[in-house]
């Protein structure tokens, strides 16, 4: 999961004449990871210490001059480099106070950018595409600069990298609505040119960013329609002939299709945080209307929104990412937002997706579904085929699909229940699942929205099918689960609980409360997911069978069942001990409760919501948990393979949570007395077990510590002392 922490303002922004333009030209790292060099669009360069939120130095050019490229820091000479008025390169040090007195050199052609990588010297990129190392250029500033690009070709974006001591300069150009990527390698110089594939609208990419993962350059570019593509640039590829009319298209994969809300995106930008996470600014939050002033972190492997933050004021479509912090200019301020991208467990299970494709930069990456990885069961419903990004890319049916989705969305607004149901099902079962990922969210939101508006409108089948596609998550459609609860659609609830990874604790608790208080009779008629039902049936039947598994004799079985029962038998003849055989809730109710038990949660967030349960509900729930515990410990936990079932740890955790939340209530309630006593014996037995284990561990340690008795051998001469 990725987290966006509370941000802070680094500096205010100057007001520019044009409101839509950012006041910041560029932000570069200093040698110190806590320092950034901010170049504004006019005349000044400021060095900030980020953690202290204060400027360390400020340099301005004279009135009338302007800075035409962001200042960079040369890590090797500890100098700052900036270009003013397109042709004057200025180099200064930290201790220089006045920029005018610093070193200046005028070059013979317009400079586009100066780039500096941490472990290399700065590189100068000219407007016409020529590239020079800064040192070489400054030794002969007036050298002639060749033209690489034609007159109409304009550089839009550039960056540089040092990969294995090789300088690479990447820049994109625009020429007659065509977009190209140049990859320039220095020493030896080679130039590669790629054509960026046209997006349907023909719009230029809104933003381009490049990142270096595992010695490969990944280009991330975003179009106004919300598509974020990724391309791996082969830096060691064959030199392509520039003269060739047809530059090869740069292969791309669709990473994300972001919801764009109304209209196209204006100022937006995407930057890759790591292999799996992308930070996006200027794109609407999927569940927060159409406002575009959001900073969102998306997981590209699972197409899930991981974190979002509303940025006050205008977003300029600029975002920088340095050393765990995102720098976003918005409104009148430049904000610094620390973030943290934990490798999701699945990503680590896959072993860092990109690493498996080391040999071939464009290798396909399989993205198995959550379900098959987490629960090792075949996904039900429309099978989501494991597909590669390339195959997604090859699909050409996007425009057709988009129309259909739109039509269905329209239909949902007004159409009758049956028709909506039919159309949605048809749309989903068309099987072009990969491109459904964004439309599914929209469909679900629409359906839920209408259902909430009209109580008569409810399409359980369509919703279930949408959930089954597994593109939905709770954050995409937060009202879905509550709606299902409201309509007592327990099957849908179960599906959501199973498939949504991000159900908030308050909703989990609401489900729990609903499930506990539902009458057994109501729920027994509901058809539930068959695997979980059969698991529960097996568990209940295990007691009835008498536990004759693996040749267990009944006596042994009794002994094994639970230590907790020994002591009540000793101390009091008849304890109202919960009978092992009797499940305190009905079968289907138990199935639903099991789903709650298996939902991810965090203790501190769940605890306050658990207090919403009343004492009767708590007692019943505890009885059920106790039943599960006894069953598990009794049957030596012969879990049926392949069936989704709560683990022992989950059960114990829930027991603890419920007890924590309602301890006083339970102590006071007379009918909870027996239950508490039994639970107390569980704990006692567990404590005893662990103390014994501790003892064993200690004695093992002691054994380890004991020195092996020294071998005396056949003969030795020793010295002893007697007193």
């Amino acid at each position, binding site marked *: 999961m990725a987290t966006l922490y509370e941000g802070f303002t680094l500096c205010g922004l100057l007001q520019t004449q044009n409101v839509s333009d950012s006041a910041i030209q560029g932000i570069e790292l200093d040698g110190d990871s806590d320092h950034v060099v901010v170049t504004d669009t006019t005349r000044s360069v400021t060095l900030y210490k980020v953690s202290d939120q204060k400027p360390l130095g400020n340099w301005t050019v004279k009135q009338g001059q302007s800075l035409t490229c962001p200042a960079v820091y040369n890590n090797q000479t500890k100098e700052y480099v900036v270009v003013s008025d397109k042709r004057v390169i200025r180099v200064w040090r930290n201790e220089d106070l006045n920029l005018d007195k610093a070193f200046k050199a005028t070059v013979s052609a317009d400079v586009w950018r100066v780039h500096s990588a941490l472990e290399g010297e700065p590189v100068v990129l000219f407007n016409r595409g020529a590239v020079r190392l800064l040192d070489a250029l400054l030794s002969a500033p007036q050298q002639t600069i060749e033209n690489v690009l034609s007159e109409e070709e304009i550089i839009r974006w550039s960056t540089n990298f040092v990969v294995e001591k090789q300088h690479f300069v990447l820049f994109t150009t625009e020429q007659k609505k065509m977009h190209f990527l140049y990859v320039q390698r220095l020493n030896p110089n080679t130039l590669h040119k790629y054509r960026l594939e046209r997006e349907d609208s023909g719009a230029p990419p809104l933003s381009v960013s490049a990142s270096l993962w595992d010695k490969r350059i990944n280009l991330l570019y975003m179009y106004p329609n919300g598509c974020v593509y990724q391309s791996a640039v082969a830096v060691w590829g064959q030199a392509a002939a520039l003269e060739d009319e047809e530059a090869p298209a740069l292969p791309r994969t669709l990473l994300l299709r972001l919801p764009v809300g109304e209209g196209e995106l204006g100022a937006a930008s995407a930057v890759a945080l790591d292999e799996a996470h992308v930070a996006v600014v200027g794109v609407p939050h999927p569940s927060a209307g159409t406002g575009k002033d959001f900073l969102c972190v998306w997981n590209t492997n699972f197409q899930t929104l991981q974190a979002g933050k509303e940025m006050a004021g205008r977003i300029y479509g600029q975002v920088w990412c340095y050393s765990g912090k995102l720098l976003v200019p918005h409104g009148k301020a430049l904000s610094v937002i620390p973030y943290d991208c934990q490798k999701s467990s699945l990503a680590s299970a896959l072993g860092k997706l990109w690493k498996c494709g080391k040999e071939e930069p464009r290798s396909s990456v399989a993205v198995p579904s959550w379900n098959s990885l987490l629960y090792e069961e075949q996904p039900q419903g429309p099978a989501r085929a494991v597909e590669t990004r390339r195959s997604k890319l090859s699909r050409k049916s996007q425009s057709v699909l988009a129309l259909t989705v739109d039509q269905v969305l329209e239909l949902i607004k007004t159409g009758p229940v049956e028709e909506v149901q039919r159309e949605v099902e048809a749309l989903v079962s068309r099987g072009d699942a990969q491109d459904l990922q964004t439309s599914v969210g929209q469909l679900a939101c629409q359906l839920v929205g209408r259902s909430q508006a009209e109580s008569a409108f409810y399409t359980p089948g369509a919703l279930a099918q949408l959930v089954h596609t597994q593109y939905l998550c709770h954050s995409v459609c937060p009202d879905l689960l509550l709606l299902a609860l409201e309509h007592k659609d327990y099957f849908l609830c179960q599906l959501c609980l199973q498939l949504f990874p991000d159900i908030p604790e308050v909703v989990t608790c609401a489900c729990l409360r609903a499930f506990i208080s539902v009458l057994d009779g109501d729920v027994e008629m509901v058809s539930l997911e068959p695997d979980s039902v059969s698991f529960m049936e097996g568990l209940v039947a295990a007691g009835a069978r008498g536990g004759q598994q693996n040749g267990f004799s009944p006596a042994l079985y009794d002994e094994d069942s639970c230590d907790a029962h020994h002591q009540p038998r000793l101390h009091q003849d008849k304890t109202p001990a919960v009978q092992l055989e009797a499940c305190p809730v009905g079968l289907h109710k138990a199935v639903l409760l099991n789903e709650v038990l298996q939902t991810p949660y965090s203790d501190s967030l769940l605890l306050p919501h658990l207090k919403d349960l009343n004492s009767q509900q708590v007692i019943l729930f505890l009885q059920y948990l106790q039943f599960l515990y006894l069953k598990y410990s009794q049957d030596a936990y012969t879990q049926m393979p392949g069936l989704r079932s709560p683990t022992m740890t989950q059960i114990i955790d829930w027991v603890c949570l419920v007890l924590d939340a309602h301890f006083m209530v339970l102590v006071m309630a007379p009918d909870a007395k027996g239950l508490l006593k039994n639970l107390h014996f569980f704990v006692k037995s567990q404590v005893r077990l662990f103390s014994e284990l501790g003892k064993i561990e200690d004695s093992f340690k002691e054994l380890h510590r004991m020195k092996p008795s020294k071998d005396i*051998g056949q003969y*030795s*001469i*020793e*010295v002893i*002392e007697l007193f």
Partner: protein
Amino acid sequence: MGEFKVHRVRFFEYMPTAIRAMSFNAHTERLALARVDGSVEVFNFADRYFQEKVIPGKDAHSIEALCWVGGRLFSAGLHGEITEYDLENLRPKYSLEAYGGPIWTIISNPQGTHVIGCEDGTVKLFEVLAEGVQFERNLDRQKGRIISLSWHPSGTRIAAGMMDMIRVFDVLTGHAIQRLLVDRSVGGCKSRETVVWTVVFLSDHTIFSSDSAGKVQVWDGHTGTLVKTHQLTKWDVLALSDESSVVAGTSEGTVVQFQFIAPNLQQQEKEWVRTRTFKNHTHDVRALVEIGTAIVSGGMDTQLVVRPLLEKFEEKCFASGLRRIHFPHRNLVSCAQKARLLLLQFPGQLELWRLGESDGHGKPGDILPLKTKPEKLLYLKRKGKDHICCSALSSCGGWLAYSTVSSVRLYRLQTDNNISITKVPKLPKVLRSAHQLCFSSESSYLFAASSQSSVLVISLNQSECKYVHTLKPKSGMWILIYRLCVAVDGKWLATANSDCEVHVYNLQKLELHCMVPMYSSCPSAMGIHPTTNNLTMVHADQQIFEFSIAEKQYTVWSRKLQMQGLHNLWLNRDTPVTHVTFNPKNPDQILLHDMYMFCIIDQSLPLPDQKTQFYNQMTLRSLSEQERPSHLHAFKVCKSFQDLMCMRLLDDQSLVVVERPLMAINSQLPAPVRQKKFAT
């Protein structure tokens, strides 16, 4: 007291042999024990289980059974002969061929009649006469060998264990009157015969049998019916013994007790109930004796275990402790203090080793680097079939002598540069055998404890060896001399005999000087002090006496010790002291050792009383130099070395300890029967 360099020797690969048979003489409280190598040992159970006598074995002369008749000890074995032992001269008195093939068992009834069970199926009756045994008659010959026999206490019936059956004979008629069939093993091979290893005939005509199928069965001897079967083990039940209860030993090393008691509190009727199980052995229990207060068992793991029956004791005493006897109570190692040689005695050979050297110095606890390693100089195989019974090495290392029951051999040794050994020819005719050999300190005389309580004095020199004299006590009793010691100045010789008498001879006058006052316990070790000529004796009951030879009375120190009494911890030690020696450099020091410790007694220090911490070496170590003197006492016990066979002080003040770790002995035993153990 100071530091000692200790030569820690573990190359003595002494290996006791398995115990095969035992017989207990309740009248004299002597336990006779036969080992697989044919040796017979006699333990005095009245004197702290002291091993009084060892009759060495003989090749191809295994013993299957032992039996006491009065004070006479008989044995029989697979060689087919009945042997009576001369217990005073530690040799077989005579052997009588029984003409029935190998003999499996020999028992006697109180009337003094022997029966033997033979391989050929006959039960033979022998009459024990004063001068020997005489064949009387055969009982009806049976098919199959007779493995075990038991007299009915009345002397009229004999039960015989055979293959797959038990027969009951009427002794008068010689006819078999009962035939009790013993089942073959349940789980095992049906075709394998069940061997009835032992039978016990009780006075109420109950017959107990133990067999190779792991059963102990109770039979009614009148009707010949099986009363009860106790399945003890999957393996053989090998030994049974009767008294008020019946005990059975198994191949797994357990001893199971059966008692004739009422199974329920209210019930009057008694029956045989399996009551207790002891596990003191790792291997087969081959011999079992119940001696009233204890169960004595022995077997393949070579140790003799005395397991007290605690209900027979009212208070804690020496006899109420579990005893294990591993090592012989005599010295198998001789040491040449001057020449730094060790002579190791095995039944079949002698080994001569030179100790290693180290010139390093170290602090206490260090192991010094060796300059020279120990060296095996000599491997001397005995001649003839008889096993070696004693050996001696002169302190200069120039002479070596050993004796079997049939001959004494003396060798001249050269160990300086080139090792040579020459047998001394023409030994005096009188020197036929010896129980104990001893050289004088200058190596000019050899003393041999010989038959009829006499000590032969042989003078030695380069050219010849000459019989000088026979020392004899005044009384005409022929009693075994089992300890000898000579004064360093060559003036005195002390002997100890099995009647607990200690005689001191004047070697210059060659006559008896005096007799030490009688004490009830045998001296287990003696030594004569090199400067004061005081005779120090340590007895089997752990008492220490010091007797001034010149004054013919106990010394002041000895009286003081007896007045004050020895510390309880000293008295309750398990094993007897087997050697006493002195420190020539410090006349106050007496060095002695048993199996578990060695002790230096400093006579100049105060004696410990009962309240003193007896084993105080650890405490003293932790005290400061100034505090120590107030905590010192005379007994300085060192337990750093275990399983001690020998401890000597060399002339350079370094100690030699010879250890034989029990672990090493156990590791050389054959594998025990496999038992399922937890987690294996």
